[in-house]
């Protein structure tokens, strides 16, 4: 029974949950974390992007069996870092979303990029974001918002603001037991 963390809450997976169940559907159907979206199921569109130990991952192709015990999964609902907030603020400021369906994934990819590179070039943005499809083609604003967030973060740092880490945020919630049947999902 693998045990890992989602947004700092411990998740214990019941043995009855099939081990090929993608993380995406554990999040959506078992944990009711619906901010992470299903778009393609084969890691072609990025709508399901989450962070696994801080790195962006397409949750639709991560089966339960591949999730190591103790890893930390962060979804859009648990995005509370300074970088994440700066990205969301920039997304709002520039009114990036149109239909909005892909934007959780875009925000997660952009946050992972800025956590790695404080001042990404256009080529960096292309490399980090090309896996995230937006059919509304909000790409002009996604690029601009990443730069906006990067600028805001540099400014905040210059002003002595401290990078907010996940550990600073919500206290660890009690674990959840995920059964195979979401209609009977149990909070432990």
């Amino acid at each position, binding site marked *: 029974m693998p045990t890992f963390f989602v947004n700092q809450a411990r998740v214990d997976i019941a043995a*009855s949950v*099939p081990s*090929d169940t993608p993380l995406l*559907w554990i999040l*959506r*159907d*078992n944990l*009711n974390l*619906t*901010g*992470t*979206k*299903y*778009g*393609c*199921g*084969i890691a*072609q*569109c990025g*709508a399901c992007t989450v962070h696994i130990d801080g790195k962006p991952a397409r949750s639709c192709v991560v089966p339960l069996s591949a999730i190591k015990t103790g890893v930390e999964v962060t*979804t*859009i*609902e648990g*995005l509370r870092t300074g970088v994440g907030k700066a990205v*969301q603020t920039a*997304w*709002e400021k520039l*009114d*990036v*979303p*149109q*239909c*909005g*369906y*892909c*934007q*959780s994934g875009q*925000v997660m990819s952009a946050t992972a990029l800025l956590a790695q590179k404080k001042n990404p070039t256009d080529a960096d*943005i*292309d*490399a980090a*974001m*090309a*896996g*995230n*499809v*937006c*059919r*509304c*083609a*909000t*790409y*002009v*604003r*996604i*690029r601009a918002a990443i730069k906006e967030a990067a600028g805001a973060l540099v400014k905040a740092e210059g002003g002595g603001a401290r990078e907010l880490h996940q550990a600073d945020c919500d206290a660890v919630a009690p674990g959840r037991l995920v059964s*195979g*049947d*979401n*209609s009977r999902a149990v909070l432990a």
Partner: protein
Amino acid sequence: MNPMRMRPLNDVAPSAVSRRVFLQSAAAAGAGFSLAIFFGDAVAQMSAPGRTQGAAAPGGFAPNAFLKIGVDSSVTVVVKHLEMGQGTYTGLPTLVADELDAAWSQVRVEGAPADNQRYNNLFWGPAQGTGGSTAMANSFDQYRQAGAAARAMLMGAAAQAWSVPAASIQIKNGVVFHGSGRNAAKQPVPGNVKVKDAADFVYIGKHVPRTDSKAKANGTATFTQDVKLPGLLTAVVAHPPRFGQKVKRFDSASVQGLPGVRYVVEVPNGVAVVATNFWSAKKARDALKVEWDETTGVKVSSAEIMTEFKRLATTPGTSAKNEGDAGRAIEGAARKFEAAFEFPFLAHAAMEPMNCVVRLDAERCEVWNGQQFQTADQAAVAKVVGLKPEQVTINMLFAGGSFGRRANPASDFVIEAAAIAHALATVGQRGVPVKLVWTREDDMKAGYYRPAYYHTLKAGLDADSNVVGWQHRIVGQSIVSGTPFEAMMVKDGIDATSVEGAVNLPYAIPNLSVDLHSPKVGVPVLWWRSVGSTHTAYSTETFVDELAVAAGKDPVAFRKALLAKHPRHLAALELAADKAGWDKPLAAGKPDEKRGRGVAVHESFNTMVAQVAEVTVDRNGKFKVDRVVCAVHCGIAVNPDVVRAQMEGGIGFGLSAALYSAITLSDGRIEQSNFHDYPVLRINEMPAIEVHIVPSTDKPSGVGEPGVPVIAPAVANALAAATGKRIRTLPLGTV
């Protein structure tokens, strides 16, 4: 302002001081009164706009079907149009807020319930629906009237309560200056209220932030995919491999006992597996043994379809337009030109694959989805489940893209969900909610594509290089034939959606004909963002460009000379050319690169868009679109930033089709399944885009679609400028 604080304030107003004085003092102090105070407890008279999500606080004032003012001073605008990204949940509230003089921070939005009387599209008669870039255009007066009427009622109430002339009451930024009362709801509902002059607009034409950006940036926006209900089951359906193919038999036992699987039921277009969660349903659907009747279904291939289209194009079709004598004019012309164009089927491929949630009870059916044709879906669901339309409630959620796909007169996946709920009821599961989820593959293979088309164009130039004749023949499936739209949109055998953009060619050409063949193919087809213009803009704007070059004229100047009677086209074209620096040479590329610049201008849905595209072609013929300068004439730009966003997005959406996308059939089977074989535009291919808006006081026209059709011809013309090659088969591929 909190009404709990406001009421005591009124109650304790010292009697020695006249209320008027008190209120004036309050106003002078910058206080004033929130809108909320003017209706007090007069809730009973509300014409409550039905069941909606996120309803305002109980109590409040609802002067009409479009507006509710809550006791918390929230101004909730009931939006009758689907928000699918195009900005209706921002644009329509802007109209109300402006006329009401509400503060933008007070504004909340609710999707309207399906209702063909109160929430119909005023351009469509008694049907609620979103499409044809009409949301703003048909609502502009209606929503302003709604806001203005409420404002008049509030002012009347205030004037009465304070015994002051109504003219002395002011409402500004959500605050009523002067007077109070509890009887705004008792005010007569005014008829035709005077709306503001443009000079008094506080939001219209200014920057107003989208109402949905925050929820969409933090994952809390609710799409159909996200609906959770007690006991909710998930259905995934095995669809036939060919359109129209029937189930011969299926073996429920092949999935019995698989984890989570509850029911296997036959539906009109396949077999549904119903399970406790998506993954269980999907795995069981994949494992389910279904035998399809091989004697049924459409067995065509794309190559055969195009061969038949080409054969048809050698014969005259039904005339859609005939001015002068184009055939004779071209025959007698000094120089003759002809070209033929091929367009593939296109999938909408919205990010949220099609889905629908239905709960069927004995006397009531509730639907959760994000659909463009609310009342048509309502009627279709009612028919499937054996209820009356008014017994079907539709909860309008955000749509994760649509581009026309969720505007299906056949209500395909909606009635599929209803059929599953109905089947569940027959096995004792009445009242159990079910969510139909299509996988990406289901979505891509399900049809209702932009039809494939074949065009031929002929033109003649006289000795002075004037265009003397133009013949345009279009071959392709009718979208509206066989649908309820046929009566309205097919006239004299011409489906208006097949020839729009061709029959209204704006150029002054004395002899012009357009004719049409509408063969039956059997592939389900549908409108796709900008509809007929998706192909007519390409053939007409690349062909006219070819004529300009042949005439030795500058492509902008050539067009301008033919657009004298079309000032809106001219304004857009001139603005785009000016902002693009058309009169200056294009910067050269690297030594082994070729660069080119192309222009196109096109009207769709009463909006004119001109675009200048710059491309760089490498030695292998691969190219990149570097920059696009876009000008749009859409009348009053109610929200200029949303207009810009729609142009940016429209360009990106159009580029997907221009560069890559095609749906093909082989022996009736769709050959594409997902984004790996149906590529769409990604961020690394998105050009830099500048959008400019032609200043205008005309009534607004739509912006959701008109940005789309212009980019492909602008790019093709740029490629021709760079390489001399004219590409006439889409997608463009390499040059």
